[in-house]
């Protein structure tokens, strides 16, 4: 049964609502083991938003799907610990996991056109989700609940639109319907997997506003997965940067985005074009390609693409995986880098760059 909206209590033991501890996800394949997520730890409090940033294949979606229990158990090896509201969900039976999914923990997917079933009416798909966790409710009640949710996410004439099929909705409306579907059971933990990536900027802003609104109302914990740092800056309280299946930098949104201490995060931020700079200057990409998860590089996963390995004595970057520890500034801001004075090195590089201007490959 879902909890009433007001009942947003901290779980026993004063632990954050979601605690992921040393999560490892591996997919055994014919070619070898794919190390999709390695030793990932994070936590999210009720009412807070954690942004997970990373490029494709960094493990951000895979780790979230593990929390929602969407991996095929036969084809996935998951280890570590995931506690939702104090309940350990790794190794939980399928029946109990099912009761959690869509109820306590819900997920908003990226491409709403693909994620909604093309053969069923939007209202029926919402009602279905409600009925799955409210077996005593009548179909009428479930339908009304669905319509109310459509209304709540700002779909005009919700009782009529509930009778439409997903393909009759516009892109933004579909994403709203998707959100309504995720929220139909008042989940306390919401995963949003790139919910605005497929939308144009105006609609994107509306959807982000809506999510913030809903979070205020429902007090849910949100894990927001994206590769868009602008979206993170707007939405997240805390940020986790993932690279090659590992967390490489964690901290408050402000700390990570304004004082990055890991060359990868720094590279991501530097690659964003700014409105003030000369538009004819080439963009500054991070060279190279994402690491293979089948044969991860030795040492730091980022070292083959890193500009700053020369700053580290010896071949430490190639040999040894750095720990996720506080930088010299200490505090809650953790990064996985051998550079002892990372912030200093990176801000020097940034200053040098802005003095000389952007020199891209010509």
């Amino acid at each position, binding site marked *: 049964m879902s909890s009433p909206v007001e009942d947003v209590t901290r779980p026993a033991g004063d632990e954050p609502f979601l605690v992921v501890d040393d999560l490892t996800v591996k997919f055994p394949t014919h070619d070898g083991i794919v190390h999709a997520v390695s030793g990932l730890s994070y936590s999210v409090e009720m009412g807070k938003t954690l942004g997970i940033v990373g490029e494709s294949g960094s493990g951000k979606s895979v780790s979230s799907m593990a929390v929602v229990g969407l991996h095929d158990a036969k084809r996935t090896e998951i280890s570590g610990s995931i506690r939702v509201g104090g309940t350990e969900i790794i190794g939980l039976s399928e029946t109990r996991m099912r009761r959690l*999914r869509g109820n306590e923990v819900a997920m908003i*997917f990226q491409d709403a056109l*693909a994620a909604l079933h*093309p053969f069923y009416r939007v209202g029926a798909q919402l009602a279905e989700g409600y009925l799955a966790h409210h077996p005593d409710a009548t179909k009428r009640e479930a339908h009304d609940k669905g319509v109310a949710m459509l209304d709540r996410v700002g779909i005009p004439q919700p009782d009529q639109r509930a009778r439409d*099929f997903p393909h009759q909705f516009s892109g933004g409306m579909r994403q709203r319907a998707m959100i309504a579907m995720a929220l139909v059971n008042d989940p306390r933990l919401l995963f949003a997997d790139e919910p605005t990536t497929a939308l144009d900027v105006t609609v994107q802003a509306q959807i982000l506003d809506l999510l913030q609104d809903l979070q205020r109302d429902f007090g849910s914990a949100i894990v927001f997965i994206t590769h868009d740092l602008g979206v993170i800056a707007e939405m997240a309280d805390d940020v986790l940067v993932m690279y090659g299946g590992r967390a490489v930098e964690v901290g408050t949104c402000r700390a990570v985005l304004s004082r990055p201490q890991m060359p990868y995060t720094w590279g991501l931020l530097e690659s964003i074009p700014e409105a003030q700079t000369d538009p004819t200057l080439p963009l500054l990409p991070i060279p190279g390609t994402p690491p293979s998860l089948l044969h991860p590089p030795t040492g730091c996963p980022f070292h083959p693409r890193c500009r700053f390995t020369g700053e580290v004595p010896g071949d430490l970057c190639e040999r040894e995986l750095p720990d996720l520890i506080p930088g010299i500034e200490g505090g809650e801001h953790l990064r996985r880098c051998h550079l002892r004075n990372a912030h200093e090195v990176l801000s020097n590089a940034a200053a040098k760059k802005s003095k000389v201007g952007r020199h891209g490959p010509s």
Partner: protein
Amino acid sequence: MFGYIVRRLIAGFLVIVATSVAVFALFFYGPSNPGQVVCQATSPRCPPERVADYNQTLGYNDPVTEQYVVWAKGLFTGRDIQFGSTTIDCPAPCLGISYYTREPVSELLKERYPATLSLAVGAAIIFLPLGVVLGSVAARKRGTSTDRLMVGSSLIIYSIPYYLLALMSYLYLVIIWGIFPQPEYNPFTENPWAWVSGLLLPWLVLGLAFSTQYARFSRGSMVESLSEDYVRTARAKGLTQRVVLIKHALRAAIVPVITIFGLDFASLLAGTVFTEFVFNIDGIGVQALNSIQDQNFPIISATALIVAVFVVVCNLAVDILYSVIDPRVRLT
């Protein structure tokens, strides 16, 4: 929707006309001599004058176009057909008169058709659910030994020539082991039990042979559907495994299976020569085969016409069914 059906029916009608024209042309421009066939059916001695007389009275010497018009008109109004000095009435829908038995072809088909229809429907009731269920289970268990067993065994059965499968099952199951009674066709209206028991083995053999393709096809379709985003959404909603598989995955996976089924069912309705032949069921498949050997043109043309009608109707039914299953399909 209504306009769509009307247009499809018109198009289907043209297909049927084209088929009958093609059959006519093939027969009349080929080495055929109906007078000879008709004459030999009645007496062993056929002097050329009698053959010529038959050809003359049957209208075979008229231009082909004229004969076609007479034939087509007879479909709607009925006509009299002259065999030498005797005239036989062929009531509408007149598909001609058998050169051998001198019965109207429509009567012969009416007599034979229930057996073919029974075979087709009974086999479809077995192979469609069997194939879809096996395929879905294999897809769900993809990569496991269950999957490999199902795919492997369906491939083995599929690769056995059908006539061999039919003959062997007849030989062992009926003659040697006597598990099944002698297959035969009894009208359902007279004795439903005899209808079932007489056709059970042909149904099973035909159903098994067809189910292998359906299992492999459904498996492929289901594997694809299981990887769809909306199936992941269904699981994320906390629906039970069964609802996710049947209501969400299978419902989508069944669409392409229906297309194949429409075509297969049409061809089954056109007669299953091997099945009818091996199990000694008097359906239109065997009849068509015999009439080709006998150059009994009226039966050949009638069978071709019926096949064309079934293909058209089954295709239309499939397309209408599409729009019922998939709301994105608009029939315009």
